[in-house]
């Protein structure tokens, strides 16, 4: 299965005035692509903390004690804030419980949705140009080194051509994009105009119409108007005729007259043409750029775009690309082999470093080794690779942080102990003298140095396993495919450079998004403030914002808890549909097992910072094993419940002093002696299903689940015909 996110042995605690709260205690789970994982538990069970850790937005007093969160080969707990910025919101988005507090009350909804799109576009264009140039220079260097020196002139020429053709293509694409943007702008303006007219708002009709006429006449690029030239001309004429025949209502007259039919009809006829233009298939500018570079005077209008694309491809391949790839391939192979040799070196050194870091060492020594090691690791990276191996890239930061943390606590631990002892002594003395002491001693934060050391080694270990795999797979690399990949990369970057999101484009996209999440009349609502929306609508806006960057993963933190039943059903349906359409992976956090039955593929039940039961939705609902899951299920009435509800007595434990044994033991009527003494491990029920309770131990007495649940499950299964396995 395709795992998109892996959480391994995550431990998080919070420093508070009362003591260190152990919020998450060693949890692990996987999220698969296109699936929904529900995390269910009471408030304070650590489910929100987990999700915040994934996004890197934990509160300042949090301590990440260990574990890793792997996304796309990166450990999200160890990457730098800049790298995190590229993931947060872009790849992993979040929908919060209270939509009102996640929207800015004094900014209009539309601006809140488009803000991120415009900002992101601005930076990505700048970056694209930079990485294009850098990568091209690197490629050239490698090609020169790999090929016969006699070919140096040719290589130089080829690389220059690639650069030039990308610029030529850019110029064309830029012009094309501008035209397209103009079409979008005009379409948006016409929609606005018609919308306002239908709402009988005040309009300067003459001025607007002449603006439309001017814009329409401008749309004349050869790429776009192959089929529409004539139509646009006639429509222009009609528009101007309509404009001249229109007389604005005089002052004092009723100003709420309806727009003449003819104006509306002309505008309505312009609309499909414009939307067709905006939906046009993009020509391949990279190819055309080359054609145009070679034949500067050639006209491009003669062929339909699809046909011309084919022709340009052939022209490019024959005259340029085949030769280029031939030479490029050698360069790529050369770079790969160079890196491979260095990697083999580094792996040995990493092994040495491991033994070094396991022994005794001073800070200066450790950092020095870290520096040399990191330098070598960075030198061993094959920079021409498009799919970057992020473990190697983040090696330096990860290792340095781990070392610094070790030494910080080495210094800090005794200080902390001393402070704690001092303050406790003082407090005890005061109490002994019979005084009333209202303050408490801030508990000590002490780390196990051995564990921190193990963390350092773990960083090195991860890289060395990665490199060993790499070396083992070295024979099966397809360099031709890699070369093509690089060309695609150039193409991609080149078009990113000129892809400009204007305000009106962002607006159109925002309106489309708003429509997608089910907001009616998005055009009016675009200009409204958050307080003008109802709770369900606000939640839709938040979802639209989360979707704006097209993320891979969406984390929903109790998205429906503040909403009522009908709206809740709508929002759940919406999230489900979006998940299917966009192949999203969802982490769904809730305290209500009822709402996840329809949503979740997998469910993890959390209690007191631990996952106590993990399985598919069917496992959890039809075959629950942990007493806490039983309690959760039996404490909510369904439509057939008549008997007294089985409430869970008491409250969750204080996580400053987490219980030694099973955290749920105190509220559990099935608790055995061992539950108070030792924490139960996971027992596998089936391949997909596991639960951490001593009841599953082979020596445990047989305990039947509560009758209310058995009855309900029987009822449910009989209703659906007992098809527990089939879908």
């Amino acid at each position, binding site marked *: 299965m395709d795992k998109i996110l892996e959480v391994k042995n995550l431990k998080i605690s919070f420093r508070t005035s009362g003591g260190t709260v152990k919020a998450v205690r060693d949890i692990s789970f996987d999220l698969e692509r296109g699936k929904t994982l529900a995390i269910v538990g009471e408030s304070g069970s650590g489910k929100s903390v987990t999700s915040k850790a994934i996004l890197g937005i934990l509160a300042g007093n949090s301590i990440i004690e260990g574990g890793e969160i792997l996304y796309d080969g990166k450990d999200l707990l160890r990457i730098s804030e800049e790298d995190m910025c590229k993931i947060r919101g872009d790849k992993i988005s979040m929908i919060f419980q209270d939509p009102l507090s996640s929207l800015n009350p004094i900014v209009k909804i539309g601006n809140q949705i488009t803000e991120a799109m415009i900002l992101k576009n601005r930076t990505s264009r700048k970056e694209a140009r930079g990485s294009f140039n850098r990568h091209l220079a690197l490629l050239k260097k490698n090609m020169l080194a790999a090929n016969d020196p006699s070919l140096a002139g040719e290589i130089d020429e080829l690389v220059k051509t690639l650069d030039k053709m990308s610029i030529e293509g850019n110029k064309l694409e830029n012009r094309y994009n501008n035209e397209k943007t103009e079409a979008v702008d005009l379409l948006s303006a016409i929609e606005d105009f018609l919308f306002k007219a239908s709402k009988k708002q005040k309009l300067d009709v003459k001025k607007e119409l002449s603006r439309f006429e001017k814009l329409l006449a401008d749309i004349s690029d050869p790429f776009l108007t192959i089929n529409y030239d004539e139509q646009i001309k006639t429509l222009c004429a009609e528009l101007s005729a309509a404009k001249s025949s229109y007389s604005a209502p005089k002052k004092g007259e009723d100003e709420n007259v309806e727009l003449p039919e003819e104006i509306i009809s002309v505008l309505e006829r312009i609309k499909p043409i414009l939307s067709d233009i905006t939906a046009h298939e993009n020509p391949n500018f990279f190819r055309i750029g080359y054609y145009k570079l070679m034949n500067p005077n050639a006209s491009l209008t003669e062929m339909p775009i699809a046909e011309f694309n084919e022709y340009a491809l052939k022209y490019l391949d024959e005259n340029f690309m085949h030769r280029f790839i031939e030479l490029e391939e050698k360069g790529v192979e050369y770079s790969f082999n160079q890196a491979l040799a260095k990697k083999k070196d580094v792996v040995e050194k990493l092994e040495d470093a491991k033994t070094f870091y396991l022994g005794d060492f001073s800070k200066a020594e450790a950092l020095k080794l870290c520096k040399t090691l990191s330098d070598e690791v960075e030198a061993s990276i094959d920079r021409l690779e498009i799919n970057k191996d992020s473990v190697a890239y983040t090696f330096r930061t990860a290792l340095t942080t781990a070392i610094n943390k070790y030494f910080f606590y080495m210094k800090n631990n005794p200080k902390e102990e001393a402070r704690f002892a001092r303050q406790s002594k003082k407090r005890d003395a005061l109490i002994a003298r019979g005084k009333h002491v209202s303050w408490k001693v801030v508990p000590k934060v002490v780390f196990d140095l051995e564990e921190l050391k193990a963390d350092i080694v773990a960083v090195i270990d991860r890289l060395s396993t990665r490199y060993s795999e790499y070396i083992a797979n070295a024979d099966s690399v397809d360099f031709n495919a890699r070369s093509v990949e690089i060309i695609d990369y150039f193409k991609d970057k080149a078009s990113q450079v000129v892809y400009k999101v204007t305000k009106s484009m962002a607006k159109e996209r925002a309106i489309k998004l708003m429509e997608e999440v089910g907001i009616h009349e998005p055009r009016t609502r675009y200009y409204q403030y958050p307080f003008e929306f*109802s709770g369900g609508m606000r939640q839709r806006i938040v979802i639209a914002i989360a979707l704006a960057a097209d993320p891979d993963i969406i984390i929903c933190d109790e998205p429906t808890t503040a909403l*009522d*039943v009908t709206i809740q059903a709508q929002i759940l349906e919406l999230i489900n549909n979006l998940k299917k359409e966009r192949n999203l992976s969802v982490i769904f956090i809730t*305290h*209500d097992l009822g*709402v996840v039955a329809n949503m979740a593929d997998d469910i993890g039940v959390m209690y007191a910072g631990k996952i106590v039961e993990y399985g598919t939705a069917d496992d959890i609902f039809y075959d629950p094993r942990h007493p806490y899951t039983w309690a959760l299920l039996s404490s909510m009435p369904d*439509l057939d419940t008549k008997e007294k509800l089985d409430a869970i007595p008491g409250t969750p434990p204080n996580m400053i002093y987490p219980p030694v044994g099973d955290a749920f033991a105190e509220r559990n009527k099935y608790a055995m002696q061992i539950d108070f003494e030792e924490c139960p491990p996971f027992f596998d029920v089936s391949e997909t299903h596991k639960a951490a309770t001593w009841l599953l131990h082979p020596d445990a007495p047989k305990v039947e689940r509560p009758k209310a649940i058995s009855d309900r499950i029987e009822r449910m299964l009989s209703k659906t015909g007992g098809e527990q396995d089939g879908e």
Partner: protein
Amino acid sequence: MENNKNEVLLRVEHLSQHFGKLKAVNDVSFDIKKGEVFGLVGESGCGKTTTGRSIIRIYDITGGSIYFKDQRICAGTLEYKEAIDNIKKETKDAIKALEQEIAENPELKSDKEALIKAKKEECDRVIAENRKLIKEAKFDHKNSDKEYSKNCVKEVEAKFAKLFEEAKNNPEETALLKKKYKDELRVAKNTKLVTNIQMIFQDSIAALNPRMTVREIIAEGLVINGIKDKEYIDEKVYEILELVGLVREHAGRYPHEFSGGQRQRIGIARSVIMNPDLLIADEPISALDVSIQAQIINLMNELRERLGLTILFIAHDLSVVKYFSDRIGVMYYGNMVELAETDELFAHPLHPYTRSLLSAIPLPDPHAEKKRTRIVYNALAEHDYSVDKPSMREILPGHFVYCNDAEEANYKKELGL
């Protein structure tokens, strides 16, 4: 108990509550029988909370009347004002038409003038009648509590008159009685009819004063009522605390020291200490975790049995409402659209909004959930009320639906009547 089952404790008639142009509640009628739990469901903003608050007189209602124990406690003047406006307009139109006729046919003048006079008189009569009703409504609205406390005072006076008579010759006992008489008289004077209705709020954090201890919060009602005996108050508070599943030691603490479920228990204790007949529970569990919800529902069920409470239960979670209520009223945009006994409502939901509401209930059953289709309700598409105006109609005994003639026939056909 059986005999009391059909005794109506609270009757709401044509209740309207408008805030300016916004008609939060519009012409809602229902009654609550003694000892039952009446559930009120609907989406947020449909007016169910406003209804609850109107009953306990947090708002002055715009129209309609509310009777509690057959005593009108709230009265609005909207319908009377509307009647006055209507008759004025009608008369004006009629007179205008008649004058027109006079202008065309002067020979009919005397006849028509007599008619005009009659119309005017009729109009004056109706206005006077309605003005009287408005006066009465305003009087009831203002004085229902005064009347009630007057009665209480009378009762106490009568009781003690007898006791004084008996203890005439014993000066010590008379002095004791005098003190007792004074206390009881003060309580009676402060007694209000509305005190017999109490409310539990949704947000227990916002509903409890953060600067008062639990003891002060729970005893506040008693203190306002004029009870000054500290020992009696303390005893009562402890008793109630234990009743709602808290312990005596909690009395000295502040609300922030409690968890959400415990806070809601305090809210319940505060309302139960006044010995109410009717408890209005406004979404008491929606802000709580599922496991705590069950605790609170069990507690309310227990209290209901022990104290014989009648409860108006406002909520949007239908599974809970179904579990807890005897009868359910469904509200949509300020109107009551369906009202029936719980089992009947879930067995035969008639109004399309009720159906859509029922179809939205999430179930803890993945297979059933995947097959569930939600019914979408669109009021404009569903009903055509342009000609035939709808009203509350009884389709089956005890099952009311808001519909017009055509729909009524349809519903009856569906039920095979």
